[in-house]
């Protein structure tokens, strides 16, 4: 896994992409959620997809991980297409992935360390004693003490759950890390802590990062590049520093959080 410099990240697209989406479409009933999404993520890059709530960011992420199958289009991971690939090869591709879910999605029947070690024990067949040691090490990487290891998820606060979720995501040293709304439901300080941890963990692993969020503070902090999803398309993408001069009315409305603009907010009453 090579880490590309900041300059290299912007030019290292297309052929050398870690993840490439070509004309990905997905509809539910008559509603076209993704309507031809094209997107490329370079190795070692951190891409953040922004967009309004309900615009299909989660659907996009689930398509990339293979939890949802797009209706048409291609999704390539390291050059090999995962759309239409067998369950087995999909599972092999997923070994490269780690994911932090919105609500952390910790298994509540298992202890904290068993959660963190899950991918090591079930996915990689590691012995429990060794996996426990590795879990405690991974918990330390996200700033949690050893005493947390034997608690169950219901005993943890929201921020701690996110940290454990992060420790679980990085436990198998994945090549690609996905973050689904990593700061939702956290206070601003804890949000910043999680953002810092994401940057640290992605950096240490040299992993590629793909995040979806509507929290601009978080997006600005963790992104190398930002893409905006609206109406089933990527309507703008560019370097994080360029987002304030995008000349795109949709992007401007979103990043400045205005209720009036081209993005129509659904009225509460019909």
């Amino acid at each position, binding site marked *: 896994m090579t880490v590309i410099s900041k300059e290299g990240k912007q030019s290292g697209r297309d052929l050398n992409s870690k993840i490439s989406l070509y004309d990905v479409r997905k509809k539910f009933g008559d509603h076209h959620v993704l309507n031809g999404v094209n997107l490329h993520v370079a190795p070692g890059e951190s891409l953040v997809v922004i967009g309004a709530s309900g615009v299909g960011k989660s659907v996009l992420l*689930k398509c990339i*991980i*293979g*939890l949802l199958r797009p209706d048409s289009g291609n999704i390539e991971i390291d050059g090999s297409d995962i759309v239409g690939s067998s369950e087995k090869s999909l*599972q092999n591709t*997923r*070994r490269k*992935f*780690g*994911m932090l*879910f*919105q*609500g952390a*999605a*910790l*298994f*509540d029947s298992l202890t904290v360390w068993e959660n963190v070690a*899950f*991918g090591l024990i*079930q*996915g990689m067949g590691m012995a429990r004693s060794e996996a426990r040691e590795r879990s405690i090490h991974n918990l330390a990487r996200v700033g949690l003490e050893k005493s947390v290891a034997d608690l169950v998820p219901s005993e943890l606060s929201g921020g701690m759950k996110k940290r454990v979720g992060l420790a*679980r995501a990085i436990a*198998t040293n994945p090549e690609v890390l*996905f973050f689904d709304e990593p700061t939702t439901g956290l206070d601003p300080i804890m949000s910043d802590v999680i953002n810092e941890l994401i940057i640290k963990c992605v950096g240490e692993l040299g992993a590629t990062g793909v995040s979806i969020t509507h929290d601009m503070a978080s997006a600005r902090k963790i992104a190398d590049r930002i893409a905006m999803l609206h109406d089933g398309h990527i309507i703008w993408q560019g370097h994080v520093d360029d987002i304030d001069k995008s000349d795109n009315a949709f992007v401007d409305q979103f990043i400045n959080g205005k209720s009036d603009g081209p993005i129509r907010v659904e009225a509460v009453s019909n």
Partner: protein
Amino acid sequence: MIGTINLFVTSVGRGALNFLSVAGRIAVFAGRSITRSVLPPFYPKLIFSQMISIGYFSLPVVGLTALFTGMVLALQIFLGSARFNAESAVASIVVIGITRELGPVIAGLMVAGRVGAAIAAEIGTMRVTEQIDALETLSTDPFRYLIAPRLIAASITLPVLVLVGDIVAVFGAYLVGVYKLGFSPVTYIQNTMDFLEAIDVISGLIKASVFGFIIALMGCYHGYQSRGGAQGVGAATTLAVVSASILLLSADYILTELFFIQ
């Protein structure tokens, strides 16, 4: 008039299509679950813990219902058969009725309520909190890890529960027969054993195994398909119990015909 007929035909058609699509989805889900249940990797620890929660913890409820069913059955059959002076048949009819029919059905319905609902609620909660998605991202097949252990455990433990239930029910009937209806203990036991055939018990146990499979399958299916938070999980729980109960009773008829009508 034509409008009303149209509306009627449309709604019947839509209902039929919905029914078929649900039946199809359940069949696909069942097929996938069965192949994952018989092919490795297996999770023996998970199967064992499911056997404890499905089987062992259902013992009190199955035992109590079986006891009262046996008692009331003895009383009713005694009163009924008194009309044509056949009181001596009480013990034999009770034991055949229990082992062939009431044991598996009553245990099945009680377990459908207790276990089917619990499975649907647990898997449904895992679905809506994205724990099932998390399993997949951690290279673990949810069908193998969550569903197969429940199906295997339920199919194995239900016959054991029913066997216990049969014994308790017959014991309940014995108590009523001896202490309330005045049978002699020896005659009652002799009558119980004399007309009992192996097929009576075995058919009941096979039924129980099928019922266990149905209960776990419905719990898993409705939990797995649940959407939309607490309300979705609540609906999944209800559907799991209702559909398991109905399927169980229809399977009961089909199995009875297969066993006893040539």
